[in-house]
């Protein structure tokens, strides 16, 4: 029951590409460790906490101070490794000879519930001493885990689905039940683990938790063969997917990222609490333009997301709305197995009841999504093209007869997104990547023409294959004009097709425009830099949408 076991688990998970293997490894870990350590392991692996106790910079400075290491040398190492916690771990290997103290065999629980949280109670000197002491008494194999937890960078290729599967196998209970138990705030404790692996299913305990979300898949050609009448069409809003739950008078607002966000949206909680019925609604939270009755840009919603207890003026400045598109439970009756078209009828029925019978006006903050009724598939395509006009991302297409199962279930819901906008741009800067991409130049900046000048308009780092990344990295090293720290300015020679979702005016950028989700969709080796687009082309694109 020690940190050692967890370190071994990390190494095993980290060095396996097979789902089957990972599930076995997890199952064995859960079998051979304490409930309390198991609950912490789940907590860490599912990324429920990425709390940063100290920064990577602090860690590096501390190491430099203690062991008289020049900071520039640590920074040089960082460029190769791409992760502060790992750099310090590797450098500590060099220090292991000086270790004389007895090695500690601390448990995962002790480390996470006591040792590390206690650090914040100490003054700087005591804190530094404590960390140094940990470095010198922890077995070498545990350094990486320790440093990663300290800096809040613990991550490993394990999805919540994988944890769900391994627990489900461990106790032989349906994955859906486990997935339900894992939803929301998982507080590490003996009880929470015991609840998770409890072989008796107790519905009462699951009361405040959301249902696993049903997700839409990317559109498939085969659906066009079906009659248009088999499907329900909705706009695809660009907000936060949420479940709004009222059970036994208690109200909870859950994001798809399994966060309880009641505190961030008090006005919604306040209004909806007046409804007499109990319910579970699935929908989208947006900042709404009430005058024009359209969604505001996602960037405005971002101003609300991470803010707890927003002031009245913030609430007025960024007014929110919850748009429900599904009803999953009504007055204690789980209706997920009811067909979508019938759930829709229920949703409409209750919505009009609530609107009429509630004293305060809930329509200021809550509505149900409008349906779209295309005549045929070409008509659906026209609707999709129009989606930018009302600030949506395209269409959601749902099989009318579908039941509400969990996950990205194939063949029931699809997203039919509007085509991205594209511009051909010139690569002008590159920066070293971090993490998995350390040691390679993988962060790129692209420019468009303005008169005879290239003006930076977007940065992107995704979209190239590993082979292309390596090839481009080589080219970058040979075609550097200047280095500024980790950034290189490059000979303008390479043209890339950049796709993005939105374009808008921005005073903060020299180019005067900002794009959302820029990504590389093609390396246009066939194009010379003179063939690249100009800022004027970008403005045209913007006009077309407005």
């Amino acid at each position, binding site marked *: 029951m020690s940190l050692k076991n967890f370190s071994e688990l990390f190494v095993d998970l*980290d*060095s*396996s*590409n097979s789902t089957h293997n990972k599930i076995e490894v997890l199952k064995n870990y859960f079998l051979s460790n304490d409930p309390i350590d198991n609950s912490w392991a789940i907590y860490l692996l599912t990324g429920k906490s990425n709390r940063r106790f100290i920064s990577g910079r602090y860690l590096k400075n501390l190491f430099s101070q203690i062991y008289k*290491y*020049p900071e*520039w*040398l640590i920074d*040089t*190492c960082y460029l*190769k*490794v*791409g*992760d502060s916690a*790992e*750099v310090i771990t*590797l*450098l500590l*290997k*060099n220090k292991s000879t000086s270790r004389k103290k007895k090695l500690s065999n601390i448990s995962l629980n002790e480390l996470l519930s006591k040792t590390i949280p206690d650090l914040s109670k100490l003054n700087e000197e005591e804190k530094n001493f404590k960390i140094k002491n940990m470095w010198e008494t922890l077995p070498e194999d545990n350094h990486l885990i320790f440093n990663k937890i300290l800096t809040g960078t613990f991550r490993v290729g394990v999805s919540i689905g994988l944890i769900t599967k391994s627990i489900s196998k461990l106790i032989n209970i349906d994955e859906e039940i486990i997935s339900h138990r894992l939803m929301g705030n998982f507080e590490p404790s003996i009880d929470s683990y015991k609840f998770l692996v409890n072989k008796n299913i107790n519905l009462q305990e699951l009361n405040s938790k959301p249902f696993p979300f049903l997700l839409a898949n990317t559109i498939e050609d085969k659906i066009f063969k079906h009659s248009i009448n088999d499907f329900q069409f909705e706009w695809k809003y660009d907000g936060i997917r949420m479940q709004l739950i009222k059970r036994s008078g208690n109200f909870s607002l859950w994001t798809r990222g399994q966060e309880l966000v009641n505190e961030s949206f008090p006005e919604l909680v306040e209004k909806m609490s007046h409804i007499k019925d109990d319910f579970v609604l699935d929908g989208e939270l947006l900042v709404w333009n009430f005058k024009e009755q359209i969604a505001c840009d996602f960037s405005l919603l971002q101003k609300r997301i991470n803010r707890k207890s927003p002031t009245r003026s913030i609430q007025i400045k960024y007014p929110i709305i919850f748009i429900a598109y599904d009803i999953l439970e009504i007055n204690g009756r789980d209706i997920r197995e009811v067909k979508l078209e019938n759930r829709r009828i229920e949703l409409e029925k209750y919505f009009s009841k609530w609107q009429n019978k509630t004293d305060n006006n809930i329509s200021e903050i809550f509505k149900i999504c409008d349906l779209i009724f295309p005549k045929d598939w070409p008509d659906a395509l026209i609707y999709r093209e129009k989606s930018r006009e009302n600030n949506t991302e395209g269409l959601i297409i749902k099989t009318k007869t579908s039941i509400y199962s969990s996950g990205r279930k194939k063949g029931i819901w699809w997203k039919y997104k509007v085509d991205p906008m594209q511009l051909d741009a010139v690569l002008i800067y590159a920066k070293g990547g971090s*993490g*998995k*991409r*350390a*040691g390679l130049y993988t962060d790129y900046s692209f420019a468009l023409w303005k008169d005879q000048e290239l003006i930076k308009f977007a940065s992107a780092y995704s979209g190239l294959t*590993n082979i292309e990344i390596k090839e481009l990295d080589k080219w970058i090293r040979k075609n550097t004009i200047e280095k500024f720290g980790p950034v290189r300015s490059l000979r303008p020679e390479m043209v890339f097709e950049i796709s993005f979702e939105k374009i808008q005016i921005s005073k903060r950028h020299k180019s005067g425009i900002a794009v959302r989700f820029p990504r590389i969709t093609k390396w246009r080796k066939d194009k010379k830099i003179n063939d690249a687009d100009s800022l004027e082309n970008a403005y045209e694109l913007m006009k077309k949408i407005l």
Partner: protein
Amino acid sequence: MKTKQEYLIRYKDGNLYCELADIWIDPSKPVKKALITHAHFDHFTFGCEEYISTKETAILLKERVGDNIKIKTFEYGEEFKINGINISFHPSGHILGSSQIRFIFAEEKWLISGDFKLQKDETCKQYEIVKTDYLISECTFGLPIFKWDESKKIANDISKWITNSPEKTSLLFCYSLGKAQRLLNEISQTNFKGNIYSHGSIHKMNNSYKKLGIDIKDTIKIENKKKIDELKGSLILLPPSLSKGSYLKNFKNIQTAFASGWMSIRALRKRSGYDKGFPISDHADWDGILEVVKKSEAKNVFFHHGDSQALTKFLVEKDSINVLFFGK
């Protein structure tokens, strides 16, 4: 201080060159006379009129490229003269036959480290400390993040990796000359007692090592038509060039690993595409390089083969030695 042209050994066209003796060290293009530090292909090029190396290096080279080359050989420590310059080979601990090369001229000593390591390796001679005035050292792993574990520990990790998956065929990728034989030697001393197969290129090198008196565990040369069941739970050594492409389709239910010093970095391990990485290297780590710089008592040091900036700055800040730049 001397100008670059006055150095006994300098960089010319990207290669180490001694003008007084008109001799090149590990040249990358055909020249008249070439000193060869060891038999890896990135240190050898076809078409030189004459090669000079240790006896072992000569034999390994001939195994690899055929008898059609003219090689003169010398024992370790045996001095020979070219244009009045005393030259001698000294063990560098990299692979069998690998050497450092010392030049003495007008009471000035120069030492080319060649590829070297200080770690234990029973398949070749231990690195010999050679005193010098000028040191030209490789610095492939010239950052303090590189600190090698004992090879015994890595071998045990490999053994565990294989035995923990008895249902699988374990493919271990490693350089066919040097690394493969060192791994075989180490793995044969672990708890893993299953079958070991090796690819033709590795098998050939194993035999050469045996001929030169190195005790290498017998392995089975891998045949393409081997029955899949027979390979379950066994270890197969393959050269890294086969890790991509269709060769792996010959096997079923495999796990793969790469044995290389670079595997000590997680990002590189992840990017490499192998399931697992075992950090074991035939090059010196940071401490190894520093130790050699110190014990050689060199007052002037050049670094090549690697990113030398950090090492240079570190030594200049810390010590009174001169770290020089070749300029290519």
